[in-house]
């Protein structure tokens, strides 16, 4: 009789090289956003940005089983999803810097980074905007006879948009291969879940659309990976959509205009003790996937990638002013 495997889901499911790569990408998300924030402070980036620092496990663990044929839709807080799906930080920085080498040739900026060819259908500046689009991508997969799934990231704020309800209903009626992942970080800008949302858990809304709904600790890599694993398997098997709610927290403000008047320093500090990257790193070390030195090396490699990305962006050319109306329509 074999012993039950009591190790965390991720450890017993993914190969060590996959786990190391996941940790690397989580560090890369963190360092990318810190690098972006620093560049903003130095005046190298204009506009605004929405940082997901503190939410890295949700992005990375949700993308563990995706290929380039699988799709994601993302949000205004989408840098982590991009990197988890495989984006190059150099081209992301270039987009932030408004350069021609950016993912959107400098036309989109932080809120529109996408790479359709590798299945990243894009961040979105409209809360809830990506939800129906994700359902459409899943419809394409089904009609075209592909086994692709679509992961639809959205925040707690989007769960009160009509688009959320219409999208979940249609995905369920048509049994489409889509996984709705709500990153519940507690606040839609400044308005808390308690003040905005009639259900205790957003996953409770799944009942209304006849799909499984589960709430997990979004800062626990394995918990997220396990929930999404089952949802992806269900989608690929043609059994329809699922809703996964990852409870998490953004350490930074909503955007660069946030004066942090709606939450306490204590609350932020308490959540910072639940750092998803530190937890995942400790888990990997505890189960012998890594030692401290190799974990440090992974983190250093992420920092090096980030720094190289910024240099690439700085050195890249800006778009030509005469191209201001280019890309409005297809070019013949």
């Amino acid at each position, binding site marked *: 009789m074999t012993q039950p495997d009591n190790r965390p889901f991720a450890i017993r499911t993914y190969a060590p090289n996959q786990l190391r790569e996941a940790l690397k990408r989580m560090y890369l998300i963190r360092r990318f956003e810190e690098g972006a924030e620093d560049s903003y402070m130095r005046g190298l980036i204009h506009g605004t940005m929405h940082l997901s620092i503190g939410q890295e496990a949700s992005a990375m663990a949700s993308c563990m089983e995706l290929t380039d044929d699988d799709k994601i839709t993302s949000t205004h807080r989408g840098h982590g999803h991009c990197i988890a799906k495989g984006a190059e930080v150099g081209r992301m920085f270039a987009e932030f810097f408004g350069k021609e080498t950016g993912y959107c040739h*400098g036309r989109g900026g932080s809120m529109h980074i996408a790479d*359709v060819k590798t299945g990243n259908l*894009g961040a979105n500046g409209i809360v809830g*905007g990506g939800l129906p*689009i994700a359902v459409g991508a*899943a419809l394409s997969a089904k*009609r075209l006879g592909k086994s692709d799934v679509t992961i639809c990231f959205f925040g707690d704020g989007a769960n009160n948009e009509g688009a959320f309800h219409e999208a979940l209903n*249609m995905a369920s009626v*048509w049994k489409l291969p889509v996984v709705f992942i709500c990153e519940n970080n507690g606040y839609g800008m400044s308005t808390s879940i308690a003040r905005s949302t009639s259900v205790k858990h957003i996953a409770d809304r799944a009942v209304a659309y006849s799909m499984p709904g589960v709430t997990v600790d979004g800062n626990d890599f394995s918990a997220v990976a396990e929930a999404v694993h089952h949802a992806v398997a269900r989608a690929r098997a043609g059994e329809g959509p699922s809703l996964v709610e990852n409870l998490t927290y953004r350490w930074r403000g909503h955007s660069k205009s946030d004066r942090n008047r709606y939450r306490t320093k204590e609350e932020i500090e308490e959540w910072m003790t639940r750092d998803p990257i530190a937890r995942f790193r400790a888990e990997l070390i505890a189960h012998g996937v890594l030692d401290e030195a190799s974990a440090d090396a992974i983190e250093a490699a992420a920092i090096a990638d980030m720094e190289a990305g910024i240099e690439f962006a700085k050195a890249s050319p800006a778009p030509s002013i005469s191209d201001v109306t280019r*890309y409005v329509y297809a070019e013949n």
Partner: protein
Amino acid sequence: MNAMTDKPSSQPQNLRTLSYSEAIREAMAIAMEADPTVILMGEDIGVYGGAFQVTLDLVDRFGTDRVMDTPISELGGAGVAVGAALTGLKPIFEFQFSDFAMLAMEQIVNQAAKLRYMLGGEASVPVVFRLPAGSGTGAAAQHSQSIEAWFGHVPGLKVLQPATPEDAKGMLLAALADPDPVMIFEHKLLYKMKGHVPEGSYLTPIGKALVRREGTDVTIVAGSIMLHRALEAAERLAKDGINAEVIDLRCIRPIDHETILASVRKTGKLMVVYEGVKAFGVGAEISAMVAESDAFDFLDAPILRLGAADAPVPYNPDLERASVPQVDTIEAAARRLTRREV
């Protein structure tokens, strides 16, 4: 030959005729036969056949996987069409009434229209929205509007207004061949109009207006049902020796500047007739475009706009008729303009 039919001059009597709605349906069937990625989506377009019976029996021919009844979810439904278009399908999404597109403005304007640009040319959204539009059916303020000009304000969209069965088919096929989102405003009163429709596949060029009637005294630009009213008014004017040139606008975005400017240079007078509310409408754009051009120097009278009253579309049939340009009002306005009594 009545004023509702196309190209009065040189057509043999034995040409095949179809109604406007039959022509649209034929275009959809041709596209679906030729391309398995073309699907239809909309409310009650399956077994019901569509609120105006445009899809009619297509569900019998192509099945429910390709002729999809959506829930009454305009925002979500339009968004699903956008997402499907982004990932390999070519959806034709029918809004039951063009008025209902307001529920989907987010997906049309913020998503479909902007995705190619926001993504630096790295995405394509080949979706076609079909929108039954216009007044004259007694359906009152929320089912009778002409909001095509709203979408003329949105870079990234193409906005078409077929006036004839031939164009209704050719524009839909052209829209499907176009890699960008296209909105086709179909006039409800035209669905039963018959006219010659060529067999097989052909594309009506997007962005080209057409001189439907040549004249020398005044240019009347009109689209959709207003074309037919303008043509009828022009026939009446001709009896009194006033020769109106009537241009079928066909396309609001992109708008065909050259055809209009060339006509204004010839006639020296311009009237724009449209069913949308007069203020901030198609007429404003065309008037300004002429005023900004060299054709301004050829004008020998003020430009005249005829649009809908500054009110919602009323229910009472006399009020409804009075709220939008009719043959009589077009005729009277053209007489004033050619006598310079404006």
